[in-house]
């Protein structure tokens, strides 16, 4: 067996373990929480009172306008100076959640806005309240619109979790770095890490396609067809 292949196989265990224990939970949790933050922020921006709208606009402005790496450093290395001490995983989770929340809020806001006004009226006309109309009529249709851009965010997030290595989270990329430190084989190890990230993204892309097919079972949008 060639040396490079042997090395890749030997390091596959530690890399997959780091992916399973840190990269995957970090991705899934921060996406789930970020989606929740994004939904709340989107609803506030669309329907909330003015002062609250100003607050969430400020939040989106900050988190979209500054580098993710800087945000992570501020939370993990900066906040202790203000008396807030977080372990690395929690700091990363908070950073990614807030970052994802800022981006997804814009996606969700646009998706809700894309549902025809007549759908609100139809829901109201059969007696629904605002929240019933939102839950039963608007969000399911907005969800379909939001799937492709949300998938983009999700796939970016998987790759961005590698930044957590910089704040000492032992996720997959840091595992690769550690092996490089003892083997001095950066090319082989980083190619292997890249392949593993590519594999994870590919799985997500495939899931996105399946989800879209499922959501399209009703024949897509009446408006777009007529």
């Amino acid at each position: 067996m060639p040396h490079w292949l042997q090395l890749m196989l030997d390091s596959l265990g530690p890399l997959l373990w780091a992916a399973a224990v840190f990269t995957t939970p970090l991705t899934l949790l921060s996406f789930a929480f970020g989606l929740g933050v994004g939904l709340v922020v989107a609803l506030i921006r669309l329907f909330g009172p003015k002062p609250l709208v100003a607050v969430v606009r400020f939040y989106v402005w900050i988190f979209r306008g500054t580098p993710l790496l800087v945000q992570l450093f501020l939370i993990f290395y900066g906040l202790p100076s203000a008396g807030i001490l977080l372990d690395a995983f929690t700091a990363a989770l908070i950073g990614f959640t807030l970052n994802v929340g800022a981006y997804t809020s814009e996606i969700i806001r646009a998706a809700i806005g894309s549902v025809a006004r007549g759908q609100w009226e139809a829901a109201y006309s059969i007696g629904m309240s605002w929240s019933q109309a939102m839950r039963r009529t608007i969000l399911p249709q907005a969800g379909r619109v939001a799937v492709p851009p949300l998938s983009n965010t999700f796939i970016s997030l998987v790759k961005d979790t590698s930044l957590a290595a910089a704040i000492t989270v032992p996720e997959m990329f840091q595992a690769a770095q550690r092996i490089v430190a003892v083997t001095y084989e950066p090319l082989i190890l980083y190619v292997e890490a890249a392949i593993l990230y590519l594999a994870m993204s590919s799985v997500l892309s495939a899931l996105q396609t399946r989800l879209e097919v499922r959501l399209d079972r009703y024949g897509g949008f009446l408006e777009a067809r007529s």
Partner: protein
Amino acid sequence: MIELTDIEKRFGENHVLKGVGVTIAEGSVTALVGPSGGGKSTLLRCINLLEIPTSGTVRIGDEALTFKPGVKVATKDIQRVRRQTGMVFQSFQLFPHRTAIENVMEGLTTVLKWPAERAKKRAMELLEKVGMEHKADAWPATLSGGQQQRVAIARALAPSPKVLLCDEPTSALDPELAQEVVDVLGQLAGEGTTMVMATHDLRLASKIAREVVFLDAGVVVETGPAGELFGNPKRERTKRFIATLRQEANESP
């Protein structure tokens, strides 16, 4: 009985309804006709409060609500009046992510909290009434315009409203498809369904409506039994309008 008293509606500077009063008897079919921008659609939407009147009183049966400029009416009260009504829209507005029968069931299960089985039975009866039972499980996107509108009529009727409001129910349809909708509405009228429709479809208005209200520039110009108003209008403005409607009807293929 439906009673609209002194209904005013302003959109900013735009004065759309200028003190309109209309009374609609139970079991009657009333057509709101008039030129575009005359206020017929807005008046119709004031009945189920999709538009909130700037001032005036809306009464449906025992439920009444009075509006005054600058006074906000509670959402609960609006819903109470709105739930006395059903509405059919020009562009159908079926829920695209629900099948035909799910569209009809939606108001029963979500709003009235009926158990699914009971709602399904009622929805099926209504789909039979509009001749759509064979498409109960179809997605709206696979139905023709006329079929979609018939499902929309069943959806509007599901919670047994006191009045069915139709906003240009045939305008988005070609004549052939419009006919199936006219037939269904005619059948409902024959069964004593109270209906108010905003329309410029002369066929729909003259065939089904018993009463006609002619609106222009935000006021009621003339009102009377359909035969009389279409056959022998008194006001000059009404005569001119009906002449143009006739012309349009003859010119269309």
